[in-house]
């Protein structure tokens, strides 16, 4: 006879103005359930976008099939997770090409990236298409607190000309709820924190700063619920709860530090409240929160625009004062190419740290990374020539035990990247027949 009491998947820690979702505990699994039970663990999907293309010389592994030898320079930070990495070659975004619309590859490639539609060249009446992440969010979003999260690190302007007549709405957004409604990324870590955990999201910066001065940890508001829950959990789940709450506290500490630093550092550009001056710190804060959101199944769909397409952000953090975009028009000058590669590597270092974190969080017999599909890539391959074929595409994670990693798969030339999105939507249990310019579903990702 089975008498074990199961905990609801929707259990939350509640307090004044606060509701903290919880990670997946063993106690939430039905008695005798195992990770092989379909639907036991949620599969997550995320898109991480870097701008201005990638130096493909140091991105593409030499051989097709299982990785042999060291990973290429830019992928090196992923070395410890090489078995979780799949490089997909020859995928193309045809709708990023001019197709008679003239200049504006940066605007087009980002607007088309997840929509599979050629964006209308305009600064006023913007039009693209619903993005694949939002199609998934519409289907699975009801099962989570947030259908999707949109996160970024740089610029969320929605108006004006950002590339040869293309609205900034195209270069500064990845997710599109409808063909005319982009979803701007959240840049401010505090805003994301408060979106996830409540508390004062609607306050203006001055009030928020005043409140911060007297802030207690958000965990203090839920002490009563926490104690009660601890009593209901077994030792493994109790440890998991401790780790989870500690990670939230750590994010709070990072936020407080960033806000304190911001008072002292002048980044030389307007930044939203609470945005750390340090790029890697900002990256870590945002991805830590996405991690918590995944852990607690607050959302299964994320788009992360690392920096806006066409950005001219300098990377003084790594000794590169030149703007990223001008550098990518390197005209094959070795010293400029080297700087582009270093920026690509720097992005990858930050990304790899996040992936390590996801891999380190156990979930049933696997870990969060094993139950995720994180696509890392760009809307251009060669930033110098603005090429839209053979895009840099890496998919990290096992997609809920459906993707075999540790290899490079090369598809036929001109294979639409939308074919990948259809294959990913299948894995999110969202079955649709057609998306964007897809000609079918990519094959070869499967375990067998």
């Amino acid at each position, binding site marked *: 006879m089975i008498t074990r009491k199961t905990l609801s998947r929707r259990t939350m820690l509640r307090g004044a103005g606060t509701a903290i979702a919880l990670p997946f505990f063993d106690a939430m699994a039905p008695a005798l359930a195992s990770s092989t039970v379909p639907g036991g663990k949620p599969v997550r999907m995320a898109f991480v976008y870097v701008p201005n293309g990638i130096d493909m010389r140091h991105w593409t592994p030499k051989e*097709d099939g299982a990785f042999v030898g060291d990973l290429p320079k830019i992928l090196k930070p992923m070395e410890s997770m090489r078995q979780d990495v799949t490089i997909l070659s*020859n995928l*193309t975004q*045809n*709708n990023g*090409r*001019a*197709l*008679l619309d003239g200049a504006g590859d940066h605007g087009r490639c980002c607007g088309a990236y997840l929509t599979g539609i*050629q964006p209308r060249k305009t600064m006023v009446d913007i039009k693209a298409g619903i993005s694949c992440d939002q199609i998934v969010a519409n289907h699975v979003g009801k099962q989570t607190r947030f259908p999707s999260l949109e996160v970024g690190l740089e610029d969320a302007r929605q108006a004006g000309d950002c590339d040869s007549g293309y609205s900034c709405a195209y270069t500064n957004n990845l997710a599109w709820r409808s063909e005319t409604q982009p979803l701007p990324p959240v840049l401010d870590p505090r805003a994301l924190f408060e979106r996830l955990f409540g508390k004062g999201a609607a306050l203006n910066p001055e009030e928020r700063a005043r409140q911060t001065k007297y802030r207690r940890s958000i965990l203090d508001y839920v002490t009563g619920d926490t104690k009660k829950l601890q009593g209901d959990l077994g030792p493994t789940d109790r440890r998991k709860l401790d780790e989870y709450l500690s990670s939230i506290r750590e994010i709070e500490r990072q936020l407080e530090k960033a806000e304190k630093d911001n008072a002292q550092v002048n980044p030389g550009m307007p930044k939203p409240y609470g945005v750390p001056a340090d790029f890697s710190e900002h990256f870590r804060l945002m991805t830590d929160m996405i991690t918590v959101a995944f852990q607690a199944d607050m959302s299964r769909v994320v788009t992360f625009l690392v920096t806006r397409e066409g950005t001219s952000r300098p990377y003084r953090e790594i000794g590169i004062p030149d703007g990223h975009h001008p550098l990518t028009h390197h*005209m*094959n*000058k070795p010293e400029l190419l080297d700087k582009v590669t270093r920026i690509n590597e720097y992005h990858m270092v930050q990304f790899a740290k996040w992936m390590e974190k996801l891999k380190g969080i156990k979930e049933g017999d696997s870990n969060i990374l094993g139950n995720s599909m994180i696509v890392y890539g760009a809307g251009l391959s060669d930033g110098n*020539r603005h*090429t839209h074929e053979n895009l840099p595409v890496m998919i990290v994670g096992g997609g809920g035990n459906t993707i075999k990693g540790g290899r490079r798969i*090369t*598809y*036929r*030339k*001109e*294979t*639409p990247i939308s074919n990948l999105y259809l294959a990913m939507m299948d894995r999110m249990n969202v079955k649709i027949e*057609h998306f964007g*310019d897809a*000609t079918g579903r990519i094959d070869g990702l499967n375990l067998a």
Partner: protein
Amino acid sequence: MGSRVETALALAVLYGLDGKNECRVVSISSTRTSLLSAAYCEVVGRFYAGAVSAAFGAFARTLPVGLAADGKIPGDTPLLTGPLGRTNPDGSKTYPHGIETLIDTAAAHGLIRNAFTAQHDQNATVVLAGPPANLLQVLTLPGSKELITAKVKELVCAHPQAAKELEAAGWPTPIISVSPSVGSSVLFPLSTLGKEFAEFPAHPVADALKAYGKDAPTGELAAVLYAVRPGDKAFALSEPVGKIRQLMLVPAEKDRLLASYIELATAKPVVRQPRFRRPVVEEPKKPETAPAKP
């Protein structure tokens, strides 16, 4: 590509017209499931390098070649193995190419669809030299009929059966079908190997003609020439039956037509200047000269 020598000759005529700025070649596909078939198309493209155009030509690269992968028309033929097997005295390939595996080719239906997306309305003409498999697949893509209606002026089929199949599948534009007698009434002479083609140290189309070994029919050449020069007086059209009109020859124009075929098929490649920015080559520093003494 690979079944008939006239397909190779038609490709040469097409690139000849491209070289004269009368058309732009924007997409090439083969229905033969043979890597050599795609390789041959690429070799001809490379031969005319610079005569390719569109997004790819802008960067002085050959067009990706679409290839059917359904295995319905498999196998290599002497028309392919002959030219592609040719070697230089040092043992290297006379016609190097980059097609070693299927991933060096494109799925034909997506490639053709993408080419349509980059054309001005009613400014594209599709020439079908062989079976319709690739175009039938294009029709299965969502939105393709609307796209074809917008972009394509007409489809010219070298073989009547292909025209009928495409009409039945709902091809949305007018279709021109080359009458069977057209190909046999004008023959492309083998003797061009010793005359016009003799100017070239190596020519992949001449090598295909050599492998064929006799005068070649010209139905597919007529399809290409009509597609680009629909007003040519050598051609006449029947009244339409459904969407299809038959293309016929005007007998009095046969000699002039043959001269056009020969001129275009044996035209020299025209190299166009690429439009992309060339890599900056550092100029050697000039030695400093001592200031002139007062």
